[in-house]
């Protein structure tokens, strides 16, 4: 039992230093948040115009063009997901996946990008998807209007960096987001860009709190971005997810999970509730 006691003491002493984050006095978050709103506004603008072109192709029966536009259009949604997700009704309508529906592809409320993806890439047709195309344009325009009128909550903006990495860790690493088109790397990049943007905008404030933290986050972003860059195609797009080498997939998991852990402390570091 002596040894047991000793071991308990070792365990206790290891915990001796409670690392309370320094109270961040006088951090000005107004500027980065307004800059972030500009970024989101630009992205949602692109989302609306590109969705228009994408859905026009679907309605015109131009399968090849529709397939080509599917992934690059979605990227704009993936990049602003922390804000877009605040409108859960639209998020479900625009971006729900087949797994979210008990009845699968036959579910009436399975609409949006992934419903059309199923038609284009699995069924190899645009026929019958005109209604989903109309609905999608209507939804992204609605999203644009709502974002326009939104006062951005600071904790949602800062917390968005972690939320985007959670998206990557949960659905992008496995390649189950775009299961019919296998264009997951576009979404992957969109999430990473969106998170990177938030970190960049708040960089001066975070560095004031914890310089080493910023360096570590930068290093992990760089690792992920370097691997993603290996799969870029000449036209600015990405290879399909099945081309990703197992070794690269594994090499991204560590940095992605570490980013998710580290960015989860961002709100606290900036003194947000």
């Amino acid at each position, binding site marked *: 039992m002596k*040894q047991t006691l000793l071991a308990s003491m070792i*365990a206790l002493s290891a915990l001796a230093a*409670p690392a309370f984050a320094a109270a961040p006095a006088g951090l000005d978050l107004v500027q980065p948040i307004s800059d972030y709103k500009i970024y989101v506004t630009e992205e949602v603008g692109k989302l609306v115009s590109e969705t228009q072109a994408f859905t026009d192709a679907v309605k015109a029966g131009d399968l090849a063009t529709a397939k080509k536009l599917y992934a690059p259009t979605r990227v704009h949604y993936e990049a602003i997901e922390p804000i877009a997700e605040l409108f859960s009704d639209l998020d479900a309508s625009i971006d729900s996946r087949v797994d979210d529906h008990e009845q699968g592809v036959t579910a009436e409320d399975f609409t949006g990008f992934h419903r059309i993806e199923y038609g284009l890439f699995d069924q190899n047709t645009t026929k019958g998807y005109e209604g989903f195309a109309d609905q999608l344009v209507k939804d992204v325009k609605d999203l644009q209007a709502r974002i326009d009128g939104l006062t951005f909550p600071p904790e949602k903006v800062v917390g968005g960096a972690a939320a985007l990495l959670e998206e990557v860790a949960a659905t992008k690493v496995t390649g189950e987001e775009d299961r019919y088109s296998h264009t997951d790397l576009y979404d992957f990049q969109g999430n990473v860009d969106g998170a990177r943007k938030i970190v960049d905008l708040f960089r001066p404030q975070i560095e004031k709190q914890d310089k080493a933290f910023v360096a570590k986050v930068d290093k992990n972003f760089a690792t992920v971005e370097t691997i993603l860059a290996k799969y870029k195609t000449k036209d600015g797009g990405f290879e399909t997810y099945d081309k990703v080498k197992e070794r690269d997939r594994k090499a991204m*998991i*560590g940095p992605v*999970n570490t980013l998710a852990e580290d960015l989860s402390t961002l709100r*606290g570091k900036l003194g947000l509730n």
Partner: protein
Amino acid sequence: MTDTRDLPSPERRRVLFGLGAAGAALAGGGLGCPMLAQANEGKVTEAPKSERTEDRHAYEGVHQAGIVTPRPAAGMVVAFDVLANDRADLERLFRTLDERIRFLTQGGPVENLDPKLPPPDSGILGPVVSPDNLTVTVSVGASLFDDRYGLEAVKPRRLSRMVGFPNDALEEDRCHGDLSLQFCSNTPDTNIHALRDIIKALPDLLFVRWKQEGSVPPQAPTKPGELAQNARNFLGFRDGSANPDSTDTQAMDRLVWVQPGSDEPAWAAHGSYQAVRVIRNFVERWDRTPLQEQESIFGRRKASGAPMQGGDEFTLPDYSNDPQGKLTRLDAHIRLANPRTPGSEANLILRRPFNYSNGVNKNGQLDMGLLFICYQADLEQGFITVQRRLNGEPLEEYLKPTGGGYFFTLPGVRDAEDFIGRALLLATPHSNTTT
């Protein structure tokens, strides 16, 4: 764990089990056999009572805990891919594992951070972690000795990637791994708490490959003078009756622990080979099989666990007067596994299995079976030889191994300066291990 090994047996049992009649009866909470009078008292959501939450195994010792230490009610094996980029990362992995397991197995208050930050502990055991008999046993797979970390030259000689046996239907994503952790404790929640702690501490170095939980049913305490019986598996038979005596240190040195001066790399001394198999049982079909057939397939009586010749669970099976297999079939499970012929004692393994139940298959049949875990000093002489003898046994009709892997369980952590895996890192010439 070695300190408890040196204690006289009753003392060890008291330390490890915190036994008392009431404690034993209530131990395991909902899993136990509560006395009726007490079962009727208390409010619905009151936590089940256990007097064993403070049971702990010493972390330091010649051997790791969780092998010859008694098997508690809840077990779990988790296999990981190691994501370390280089040797320095690998050392950080082992050092962090060491620090976390040291804390988790000894217990204590969790760290408090600014509430604006995510809490460092999941909190599922409350603000003070109780050890609850937890052991976390660290083993490494053959793939850790590939070209990534410069460990090729010191791979344990008998460590290999598990190859399917004829009756196996291995699923790739439930097999193998660079590293395995075996969690054993009194409750599944304690194992889960430890796993989540380790995952949170090592996001950049470990990736969960597969995980299998299991349990063994607690029994009423034995009366004085009675031998403790082995737990039953999901086929209803007692499992482990012929296990070598894990309290016999000489037998364990011979059968379980790699010895200094053997043909294994020197660093591997006091380690062991771990074989894990996720073996599905076709329980519906088994339950539709006549009792006498079940018994002849196993070679034991179902109710008592006695061999076919009679006696009780601990009567040694004797095949000397039964060369034709009239009493115990020649292909009965226990006769193939341990024929008790001259020389076959070299193939004895130390079994430490748990029952698992995972849900339902598409056909509506239950997905359950045995999380088979065994330890041996020589993997080829041990599990692989035994399993080869079992190939084609009649029991196979009711079994389908689907996962698992072979691992080498690292030697124990000697003292506060040592850390798990240090001997392995120091064993290679270009080691940059800092201790």
